[in-house]
């Protein structure tokens, strides 16, 4: 299991970390420390944590534009993740990736991807490599309901099924692709798409981390037994905006009643209800401290030297010509 996601309290604690991280990140977006904005994960924490609780440390994930939760759930250091969002040299990607491209290969995060659906075939390739090497690794690939309409994702489902690859397709159905309701954009559904390729699929309550975890354990175990891919559709909801630009431009596509209704099923409260109140308060305090340290670390970290703007462009070390001769 991913580093310390065993007990109900562990699951709560990690979700609390993600929630608090996102609240902190929102504050830093507003203060201008994080430029470009973020796609907050608030409300969807149970999906990332439930899935990663079923993964081993050596297992791999790919993530999405709304990826902070996946990265933290898989075990990245929140300080370095926050430093990445703030564009610092100490960030996970040395400030070269930002919110939508966080990667942390050391803990099995092959990268978040800003192109909807694009990570699925990359995950399939990682799973193919795992199958060939007999490493026993499983690869989980997250995508949204919007991703269900990307052709490349359907191609990826076909390849994974055809070659019985150890992939866990995780559809985070939060009801919207930006402003488009799932029902308006998706004919059929996630489970139907998977089943068309002979991939076992379930729809689960994405607000309950233990439900997600249990489904992910079944799927990951199948994959480890070389029985091929599986798909989990987690029904969830983002409590906040699609992107922080929504704080500037008012978009009306959902009602306050709908938001309030989903908020009554806050995944932190569902899991928080399973642990003692005193313990919950203690964990909350612990997380607050970790995040205070993350903020200190990120904001005190050096910004990259502009002279290094093309560093890492070529893994071979080739140096590209500059824009001015």
């Amino acid at each position: 299991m991913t580093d310390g996601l065993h007990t109900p309290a562990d699951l709560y604690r990690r979700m609390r970390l993600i929630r608090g991280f996102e609240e902190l990140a929102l504050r830093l977006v507003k203060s201008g420390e994080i430029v470009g904005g973020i796609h907050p994960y608030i409300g969807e924490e149970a999906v990332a944590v439930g899935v990663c609780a079923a993964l081993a440390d050596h297992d791999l994930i790919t993530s999405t534009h709304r990826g902070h939760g996946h990265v933290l759930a898989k075990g990245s250091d929140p300080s370095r993740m926050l430093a990445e969002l703030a564009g610092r040299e100490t960030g996970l990607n040395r400030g070269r990736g930002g919110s939508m491209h966080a990667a942390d290969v050391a803990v099995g995060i092959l990268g978040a991807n800003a192109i909807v659906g694009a990570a699925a075939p990359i995950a399939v390739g990682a799973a193919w490599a795992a199958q060939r090497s007999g490493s026993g690794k499983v690869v989980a690939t997250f995508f949204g309901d919007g991703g269900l309409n990307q052709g490349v994702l359907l191609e990826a489902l076909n390849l994974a099924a055809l070659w019985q690859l150890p992939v866990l397709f995780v559809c985070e159905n939060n009801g919207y692709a930006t402003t488009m309701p799932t029902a308006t954009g998706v004919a059929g559904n996630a489970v139907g798409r998977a089943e068309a390729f002979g991939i076992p699929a379930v729809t689960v309550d994405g607000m309950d981390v233990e439900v997600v975890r249990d489904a992910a354990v079944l799927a990951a175990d199948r994959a480890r037994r070389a029985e091929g891919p599986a798909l989990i559709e987690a029904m969830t909801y983002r409590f906040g905006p699609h992107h922080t630009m929504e704080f500037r431009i008012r978009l009306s596509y959902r009602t306050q009643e709908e938001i309030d209704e989903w908020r009554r099923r806050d995944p932190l409260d569902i899991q928080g209800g399973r642990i003692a109140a005193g313990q919950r308060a203690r964990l909350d305090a612990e997380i607050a401290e970790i995040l205070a340290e993350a903020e200190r670390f990120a904001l005190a970290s050096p910004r990259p030297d502009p002279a290094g703007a093309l560093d890492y462009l070529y893994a071979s070390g080739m140096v590209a010509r500059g824009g001015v001769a």
Partner: protein
Amino acid sequence: MTKLSYTKALNRALGDELERDPAVCVLGEDIGAGIAQLTLGLLDRFGPDRVVDTPLSEQAFTSMATGAALCGLRPVIEFQIPSLLFLTFEQIANQAHKMSLMTGGQVSVPVTYVVPGSGSREGWAGQHSDHPYSLFAHVGVKTVVPATPVDAYGLLVSAIRDADPVVVFAPAGAMGIRDDVDASMLAPVPLGQARIHRAGSDVTVVAVGHLVHTALAVAAELAGEISVEVFDPRTVYPFDWAALAESVGKTGRLVVIDDSNRTCGFAGEVLATVAEEMRLIAPPKRVTRPDGAVLPFALELDRAIQPGREQLVAAVRTVMK
């Protein structure tokens, strides 16, 4: 000395690299049967785990190669049609190419994309006759266009061993070429290193792929009159600017023949850089496909818009005036 065909050279390179490095694998459509001849015999030698027939899902298997490369493999993809590079431009230009920088150097994506039969394949018309090497050079993906069997071998080997994505164009117009070779000539050719096919003192003609042979024919035709140096960068990107500076320093005149569309094509880049950084004694010329070229089907029409020998002769004469 034995005769080595261009196709056989690519086949040898693939076989040698599969043999040398267990991380190398080949993916593509109908490659088990060896449809383009590049992979002939490889399935029997290396088995279906390393020579993988893929379904018709170019976008997925292109990114699948990226994912496998992130996990230590060194995939080679064979595309059946040059325009499949348009279909997979997202996966190459926007995914594979960007991974190293975006991750701050955590990963590399050593994938090679080979396009046997790039450029005009006579009679295959609009959607099979593209030659988009300028496009990949533009986004900064390493781009190789070998002219001869020996270079095809050496450049493909280097592409496979390179730490970054590399596109290898094998022009349809060059694939009929044969070289006299002995085994010692089959060695890696470094990316970014030009080759002077014929030395000359009056005009430098820059060409890649099949057009190197056009340039050589023109140089021979004009031999009594004009001394043409045939300069083949071999890799369009990275380009060997130092070698070009040396050649142009000697000749002071430049013509580029380029199978790209004119606007923002490779020839334009060569002319611009020479204008900025080198010294010419006459205005340079380029011979290219027209703007926006879509190769028409009828042979007369197809040939009418490909850069060719007569246009090159005229351009060389013009810069000599």
